[in-house]
């Protein structure tokens, strides 16, 4: 990927289908919107298949099937089959709940390439206290089935203050389950994670210890598993290149058919995103909403002349909006942002957190929150 950004739209190489917001888990860090309970009717199978065809015509290659829990869609196999026929590399991003032998067999028949399985912790107590649902044993069983069928298995574990001290145990668990890849992803503070940020934001010392554990594992471990570690941008001082740049290589579609350049985009003010049941994928990719933060012309200082701007694109627009009130600001995770202090404030605030209970991600909470988001101060 070269560093230059241009206003010429590239291809949506990476497609993410959020097939449903329904989910058997209630993870407190979920990136689904807080108001998911107010979402419209789920797309029909035919809509998803048409989007697959249109997007492939634009050069889409990697398909993520996610949600909520994608296994709750009975047409999942049909979607996988059409995607495989069209030449996509298909990834199932799942909690593992419902991934029994017959389902896994059917998905393999349909041509599924790969499974990404989430774990919320390295034992039942830790896992289930974040997932909000008894699920650890079912995940272990799913992992064994996935490997038995010869699939490559990526384990994804979101790290936050409640589990970051267990990184060594998470590493051994993943190795023992014969994961081919382990992704340790420090939590990003959108959606439900934002609501629970005081309880989820780790300290700098915790983050540094976790990184040391990963480094030590990489030195000592002789096996085949590869470990990806995704840093905590709040602590790193460098912003994340969100979706590798707005509208450059990624398109997400929500359960009701709204097309987004990134998962937080609906939180941005004054934007009305196009829908796949009303517009073609090409029209969507070329829409003003997808064009909004492409290239560099929207940037203010310090991003506008920053030598890193081709690499990190100024960070995350949604985070800039959430923490500074203006989506054209530099992402305050960046140490060069004049608003960088809000991040230090958030870390200090989380350190003083007095054991308020987590708000679990479920329809009841989502309905209660409505469109009046109950957020901590920036």
């Amino acid at each position, binding site marked *: 990927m070269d560093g230059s950004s241009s206003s010429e739209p590239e*291809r949506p190489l990476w497609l993410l289908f959020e097939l449903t917001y329904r989910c058997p888990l209630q993870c407190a860090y979920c990136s689904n919107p807080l108001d998911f309970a107010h979402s419209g009717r789920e797309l029909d199978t035919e809509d998803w298949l048409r989007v697959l065809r249109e997007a492939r015509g634009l*050069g889409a290659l*990697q398909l993520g099937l996610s949600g909520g829990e994608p296994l709750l869609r009975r047409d999942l196999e049909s979607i996988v089959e059409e995607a495989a026929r069209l030449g996509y*590399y298909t*990834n199932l991003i799942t909690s593992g709940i419902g991934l029994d032998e017959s389902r896994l067999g059917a998905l393999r028949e349909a041509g599924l*390439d*790969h499974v990404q399985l989430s774990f919320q912790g390295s034992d039942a107590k830790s896992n289930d206290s974040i997932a909000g649902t008894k699920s650890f044993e079912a995940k272990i069983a799913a992992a064994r089935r996935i490997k038995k069928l010869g699939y490559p298995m*990526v384990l994804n574990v979101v790290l936050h203050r409640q589990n970051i001290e267990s990184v060594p145990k998470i590493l051994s668990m993943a190795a023992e389950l014969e994961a081919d*890849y382990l992704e340790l992803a420090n939590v990003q503070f959108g959606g439900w994670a934002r609501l629970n940020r005081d309880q989820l934001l780790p300290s700098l010392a915790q983050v540094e210890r976790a990184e040391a554990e990963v480094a030590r594992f990489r030195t000592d471990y002789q096996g085949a598993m590869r470990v990806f570690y995704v840093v905590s941008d709040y602590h790193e001082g460098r912003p994340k290149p969100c979706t590798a740049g707005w509208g450059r290589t990624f398109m997400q579609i929500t359960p009701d058919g709204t097309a987004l350049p990134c998962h937080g985009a609906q939180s941005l003010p004054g934007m009305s995103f196009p829908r796949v049941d009303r517009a073609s994928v090409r029209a969507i990719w070329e829409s003003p909403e997808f064009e909004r933060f492409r290239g560099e012309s929207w940037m203010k200082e310090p991003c506008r002349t920053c030598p890193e701007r081709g690499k990190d694109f100024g960070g995350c627009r949604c985070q800039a909006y959430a923490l500074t009130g203006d989506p054209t600001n530099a992402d305050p995770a960046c140490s060069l942002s004049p608003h960088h202090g809000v991040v230090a404030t958030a870390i200090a605030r989380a350190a003083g957190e007095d054991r308020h209970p987590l708000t679990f991600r479920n329809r009841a909470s989502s309905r209660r929150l409505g469109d009046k988001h109950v957020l901590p101060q920036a």
Partner: protein
Amino acid sequence: MTATLLVDDLVRVAPHHRLRWEEAQGCYVLLYPEGIVQLNETAAEIMRRCEQAKVVASIMREVQTLYPEEPVDDDVRAFLEEAISHGWVIIERA
């Protein structure tokens, strides 16, 4: 961890990595869970020759026929070692 490749090593494209000609981009791409790699012509010629396990020396010989004017062995080895370090190609030791 870089592998030192021997000419009689058996190599092949790693499991669940898919090699595909992508018309829209006019090149071969390698697809795997977290990535898409665009392959230049030589890289694609090498990868195509180890979709099934093949001995490094055979790959070198075959690629040499495509570029009769210049020695390719070092480039083939260098590319394969890079591919192995990324996990795109594996060595099947007997």
